[in-house]
C-alpha cells in the first residue's frame, strides 16, 4: 500500500511538473476540489467522474456544455482520490496531534502566515515549494511549544530520552524519536528511517549543543511537514 501511495504521489507530482493546469472543478462556493479527471474547463461538473473527455478534443469548457452534438470520445480512468490538506486542516491537525493548545502567540503566528501558508485548496496542484517551507515554519512553532511542555513532550515521545545532547544520541534514541513522530503524524512507522536520516544530517551542525529538546523539535517538525502528513 505504501509503495502504491508513493508511486501515485510521484506520478502525480510528475504530472504537475509536466502539464499545464487546464481546468478544475468548482464547487458551489468557488472553492476548488480535487479531481485529476479534469482535462477540460469549468463546465465539466456535469460529467460523471469516471468519464474523461479525451485530451485535445476541447480546450473550452463551455464548448462541452453548449455543443452536445459534437462527438465526444469518452475514456475511463480511476480517479486519483487523494489530496493535500489546506492550511486550516494542517494547523488543526498539528494542534490535535501534538496536544498543544492554541495560545495567542501561536494564533498570531498562524494568522501572520495564513495567507501565504497554503495550500489554499485540497488540490495537489495547489501545493508549492513555498507552501512546504511555510508549513515547516508553522510546524516548528507548534512542535517547539509541545516540546517545551514536559507533559506533552513525554506523551508524544513516550519512552524516548529527551535529555540527551544531540551528539550523545545513540541509534536507539534516534529510532525512538523518529518512530514516535512518524506514528503520531503519519499513523505508521515504515518510513521513519527518513527521519533518522534527517536527524543524522543535522547533528554535525549542533556540535556543542547540550539541549536535547532541539532534536525533538526538529524531528517533530520534520514529521509534521513531510508529505506523509500533508497529503491525505
Amino acid at each position: 500500500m505504501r509503495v502504491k501511495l508513493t508511486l501515485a504521489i510521484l506520478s502525480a507530482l510528475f504530472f504537475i511538473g509536466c502539464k499545464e493546469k487546464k481546468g478544475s472543478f468548482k464547487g458551489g462556493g468557488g472553492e476548488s476540489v480535487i479531481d485529476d479527471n479534469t482535462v477540460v474547463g469549468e463546465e465539466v461538473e456535469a460529467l460523471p467522474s469516471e468519464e474523461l473527455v479525451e485530451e485535445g478534443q476541447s480546450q473550452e469548457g463551455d464548448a462541452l456544455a453548449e455543443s452536445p452534438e459534437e462527438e465526444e470520445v469518452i475514456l475511463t480512468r480511476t480517479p486519483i482520490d487523494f489530496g493535500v490538506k489546506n492550511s486550516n486542516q494542517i494547523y488543526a491537525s498539528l494542534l490535535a496531534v501534538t496536544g498543544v493548545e492554541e495560545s495567542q502567540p501561536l494564533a498570531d503566528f498562524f494568522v501572520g502566515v495564513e495567507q501565504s501558508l497554503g495550500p489554499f485548496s485540497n488540490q495537489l496542484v495547489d501545493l508549492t515549494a513555498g507552501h512546504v517551507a511555510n508549513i515547516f515554519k508553522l510546524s516548528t512553532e507548534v512542535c517547539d511549544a509541545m516540546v517545551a511542555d514536559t507533559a506533552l513532550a513525554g506523551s508524544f515521545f513516550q519512552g524516548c530520552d529527551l535529555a540527551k545532547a544531540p551528539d550523545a544520541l545513540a541509534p536507539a534514541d534516534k529510532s525512538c524519536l523518529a518512530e514516535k513522530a512518524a506514528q503520531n503524524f503519519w499513523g505508521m512507522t515504515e518510513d521513519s528511517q527518513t527521519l533518522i536520516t534527517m536527524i543524522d544530517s543535522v547533528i554535525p551542525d549542533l556540535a556543542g549543543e547540550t539541549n536535547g529538546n532541539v532534536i525533538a523539535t526538529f524531528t517533530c517538525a520534520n514529521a509534521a511537514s513531510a508529505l506523509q502528513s500533508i497529503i491525505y
Partner: protein
Amino acid sequence: MFANARGLAILAFVSLVGAETASLYAAVSDEACRRMSLRLRGVPPSAAELATCRQQATAYDAALAFTVSNIFLSEVKDNFAPTNNEDGNYFVPLDDYLATVMGFARDDRDFREILYGNNFYTCNAVPAGGAALQNAYSVSDNLHYEECEQEGDFRGRLQAEQIQVANPIFANNPTDVPAGIYTLRGFGCMIYEAGTNRAAFRWTLAFFLGEVIDKFADSQTPDYRVRRDVTRQPGGSATVYETKCKTCHGGMDPMADAWAFNDCVEDDNGVRQLTYTKPAPGATPNAVAQAVVQKYASNANTTPQAYRTVGDAWTNQWNRRANTRVEWNFPVDTDRSGTGPKAFGQMIAETGQFKRAMAQRVYRKTCLVEENLHTSPIILDLAAKFEAEGFSIRKLYAHAAAECAEAKNNDSNG
C-alpha cells in the same frame, strides 16, 4: 497413526483457511481505518483508536467513531467555510453560521433546518475545567465566535439557542422568520450586502442545491415579475434580454422577493448588523410596500413600467422542463408561492437536490472525488442514507468516509 496425521493435516488446513478468511473479512482493515481517520479528522488514528476501529462491525460504524471529536467539527467548518463568503475562501473566522453548522453536526440535528429553523449555536456552554468566554454573543459583532475559535473545544462550548430570543428583530413575525441562516449575521451579511438581495437566491442555489444559477436558466419562464432594474434591451437588443437575461431573471426575481424586508446595514462606526423591516401583521398594503428595503427599488428608472416589489410574497415558477430535476416538493408543472425567507428556505430544504447537494459536498471533501450531482449512484445512495438517518450531517460524513475507504480497500484487494 495415518488417520491421526490426516486429521491433523485437515485441522491445520482448516485453521489456516480460517485465519486467512478472518484477516480478509475481519471487519475493518487497518488501511481503511487510517484513511477514514485522516479524511474525517486530518489525523491518523492512535494505536488505541486503531484497535477499536478494527473491531467495528462495519466501516460505517468505525467512521462514526471518528466523528466524535473536536477536530472533526473543524473539518466540518472547513468544508462549509467557503459558503459564508463570496470569494469561496477557506480562511474565514468562525461565525454564527459556521458555528450553527458545527452544532447541527455535533447534535445530529435535522440539517434541513439550517435553512428555516429557529435554532442556532453560540459558544455559551462552559466545558468542564474551562471558563466562560469573555465576549458575550452579540448581534452586531463577531468577537464571541472569534474567541470561541481560539479557545477551541467546540464540542464543549457549542450551545443551541433560539434566533428569535437572541435577536428580537425577528420576534414579531413568527410565520416568515426566523429562517435559519438567512436570519443569522454571518450568512446574512454576506448575502444581503449591497446589491439587490438577488445574491441570497443565487448563493442558495450554489451552496444548497449545488449548482450555479446558469444551470437553472429557462427561456420559457414568464417574466412578469422581473424587476425594474433589468433593462429589456441590453445594448439595444431585445433579443439578448429574451435569450439571456430573462432566462435567469424570470425565475430568480419572483423568488428573490422572499428577502424584501431583510438587509445588513453598516453604521458610521462600521458596526454591521441585520435588519428586518416587515411591519407587524395587520399593516396596510401600502405600509407593507413602503417597508420593502430600498435596494429593491434601485435603478427603477431602467424599466419603470415593470414589476415593483411590494412585499415578501415569492413564487417559484421553475418546476418545469429541465428544472424538474431539482425534485421540488410540489407537483411538476405548477407554481409554488409563499411569503418570507422561512417558507422559501423550507421549500429548498425539502427538495431532492438539497439532499444530493449535501451528499456531493460531503463526499467531495471526504473522498476528494467529484461525483455527478444528479446521476452518480454514490451520491444517490448517500442522499438516501442522509434522509433515512434524519438528515444528520455527521452520519452523512461517516457514510461518505466509509464509502471511499471500502472502495479503496476493494481496489487494493482486487
